Structure formats: structure tokens, C-alpha cells
């Protein structure tokens, strides 16, 4: 009976640790124009797959936004400035900082 109980307790502890500890990472987005000047007031939305649910949003301040403490995994981001829009997929790894530089002066974006 004691053996069974200790097995049960160990299982609960292990499973709680496994389910409770998912890694987290940070995402920083920098938005600039063709001359590399930072652009303010640009909307950056962070979504779960296929934009079905927004998780966070921010507007750029000095051309930057930061989403800290994101669960590791794949996200979508939508960047909107009046008259311009970009969408991209981004992977967040545990314990890592991800930087994305977006040039709103062209049709491309760089990571």
C-alpha cells in the first residue's frame, strides 16, 4: 500500500512539473522606413495560428515593441501602419530573444 502511495505521489509531482514548465521566450519587433528611421504608432498584433485569436498587441514607440515572456511555439504577427500591412509567422524558442526588423518602406521584411 505504501509503495503504491509513493508511486502515485511521484507520478503526480513529475506530471505537474512536466505540464507546468513550458519554456518562455521574448519577441522584439523593430519597424523602420527605407532610410532606417524608426516608425512610431505602428500596430503590431501577436496571434495564435492563422490569426484566429489575438494574444497581445502594442503600438511602436521609437519604432519598437516588445512581447516578453511568450510561451515557446509558433505565432503569427500582423503589422499595420496607415496604408500598409505585413503578416508573418514567427517561432519563439524557450529562453531566447527573437528580433524581427521590418522595413515598411518596401514590400519585404527581414528577420
Amino acid at each position, binding site marked *: 500500500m505504501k509503495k503504491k502511495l509513493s508511486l502515485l505521489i511521484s507520478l503526480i509531482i513529475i506530471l505537474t512539473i512536466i505540464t507546468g514548465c513550458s519554456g518562455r521566450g521574448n519577441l522584439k519587433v523593430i519597424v523602420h522606413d527605407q532610410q532606417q528611421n524608426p516608425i512610431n504608432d505602428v500596430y503590431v498584433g501577436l496571434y495564435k495560428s492563422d490569426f484566429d485569436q489575438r494574444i497581445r*498587441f502594442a503600438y511602436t514607440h521609437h519604432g519598437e515593441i516588445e512581447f516578453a515572456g511568450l510561451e515557446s511555439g509558433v505565432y503569427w504577427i500582423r503589422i499595420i501602419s496607415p496604408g500598409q500591412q505585413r503578416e508573418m509567422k514567427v517561432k519563439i524558442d524557450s529562453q531566447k530573444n527573437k528580433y524581427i526588423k521590418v522595413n515598411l518602406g518596401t514590400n519585404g521584411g527581414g528577420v
Partner: protein
Amino acid sequence: MIAFKRKKVITFLLITFLILGSISVQAVSDYEKKLSKKYLEHYLEEYGKAKLKPKNKKRSDKIFSDLASEAEKDASDLDFKYYVIDNPAINAVNIGNGYILIYKGLFKLLENDQQLAALIAHEMGHGVNNDMQEKIDINQKIQIGAVIFDLAQDGKLNKDKINPAVGITVNLLVKKYDRSQEREADIYSAHLLDRAGYDPRGVIGLLRLLKRKSGSVNLELLELVKSHPNLDTRINYVADVIKRQKEAEKLYYSPISTTRQLAKGLLQNKDKKIYSTYAEIIHKNFTMAEFKEKEKLKKIEDKVARLKEKYNLKYTLELRNQVEGTARVAILFYNNEFAPQNKVTSLAIDLVKGKYGWKVLRGPQTY
């Protein structure tokens, strides 16, 4: 061999238990759909649909359709339908998946369209707030927990306990929605009525009607009052919600109007005014006293106060961006005249559209 199998079963159930405990289900599950269908069939078989006069049927269909088209925006996965069942009890219930049952006893008691709309909106509130799924989740966790306990205790399963469908159905039939769920449904109904073009005061009318009737109607028939206590408390908080709605319509109807209130608060150094422009999520995290201690805001307030002493301060507002229910507004402060060379400082504010109009979520921060 049997002991090994049992360990495997316990491990599997533990994993399921932990997963269920950590996942919050938002959409309507297949189980809820099945359960609602079963529940509906049971009621229609037991009592049948009430025969309504064509005139009454037409007006209740119209009210339902007006409200459903708004509520669908909040919960597109629900299949909103309503049935008036031939039962004299004064009751109405949301049975999941958007299905609403109104008992004929209550339907006949309603005095006007506002009360009917309020009743339907309240029941839709239970659907949109996912109240049925919450009950299913809790029941499932209890059932699995009971199975693990059985196995761990003596290694034998009590077969009566492991039929979750039986347990859940019985529990759902017996248990009513709890008070916080009723409160959320009341609040949602006031907002939904407003959005759909109905008078939100219909909720108060409905609650007052139930209060009046609780003294004169056979209490056995008054199921709705038995399961929804504290009518006075409900009338008070719904009245408060409606009052806030009306104030919000005047003050916070756009990102610019809310930012104007914030700018006025900063210039007049009125913390209460500033605090009132912030979103509910901020109010949940900070009381007015804690909010006043926020360092960043204090710095901004001090800065504006210093500028006010030094200059003849004027301000203008600019909507810089507005996307998916969010907005960025800038407050530009000038000395004397609105000319670029007279600009003293500018602040960025992030807003979100909520129940009470546009509210500040972040900022102000200096550009």
C-alpha cells in the same frame, strides 16, 4: 500483469486529469452539443412546444433574431435557437450550444417586448459566457478524480462511478448556474440589449416583474426565482451597469473622446478623472490609491504640471492608428498657438474598445 495494467490505467488517468485541469475550453465541445440535443429532445418529448398566437410568435421571433445576430458576433460557434415549451412553470433555461427553453408560464407572464428581450439576452449570456461548458469541465474533472481515487485505494473500479455521461447529465439537470454566472449573464444582457437597439432597462423591468410575482404566484411554479436569489442585489448592479453604459456613451464613445478626458485630467491634475479613462483590466489590477502611486504616470503628471506653470499650455489630439478594436492617440501640447515650432511635448496613449466604450490600456508615454 494485472497490477501493471492498473498502473498504466492510473498513469493515463492522471495525465488526463492534469491536462483537463490545465486546459480551459473556450469553444462549444461536441459533448456539450450532444448533451444539449439530448436535453432538448427530453423536454420536447415531455412537454411539447407551446402553441403561441401567430402575432406573439412573430414578435418573439423578431426579438430573438435581433439579439441572436448580435450575440453571434461574440460566440460564432453557438447555434442560437429558442423554444417555448408547454409547461406552466415560470422558468427559462439555457441548455447549452445556444439552445434556450422558455416555459410557457413565464412567457405568458411577461408584460412587454423589453422584458422578453431581456430574458432572451440573459439566457444568451449564459451561452456566450460558456457557462454550460464550465459545468461540464468541472464534472469531468470530478469524475476522473473519483476513478483515480478508486484505483489507488483498492485497485478496483466502482462501475457506477465511471460512467461520466450519467453523472454529468444528472448533475447538470440538478445544478443551476451559480451566482457569479448569473451576474455575468445579467451584465452581458444589458450590453447585448443596448447593442441590438433594445432598452437595457428591460433587464430591470424583468427583475422587478419577478420580484412582484414572487409574492402572488404559486411559489412551486416560480422556478426562476428559486434558482436566482437576491433580486434586489441584481436590480442594483444591473442599474449600475446601465448608468455606466450611459455615461460611457457620452464620455468614451471614441478613442479621441476618451483621450480628451485623460488630457483634461492631466491638465487639471484630477486623478479620479484620469483613473476613469482606464480599462477595466487596469481597474482590476490597481485600486485608485495604488494607481496614484504608479511611478510612470506620476512623472507624466509632474511634467505636465511644470509645463503648465511655464507655458500657456494648449493641447490637440491626433488619432495616429486604429486597428481591430485598438487605437493609438497622440496628445500634442503647445505653447500659445498650434504651430510646429510651439510644440512643447507629445504623449502616446494606447486604447482598447471595451464594454464601456474606448478605454486607456497603456500610457501616457512621452514620444
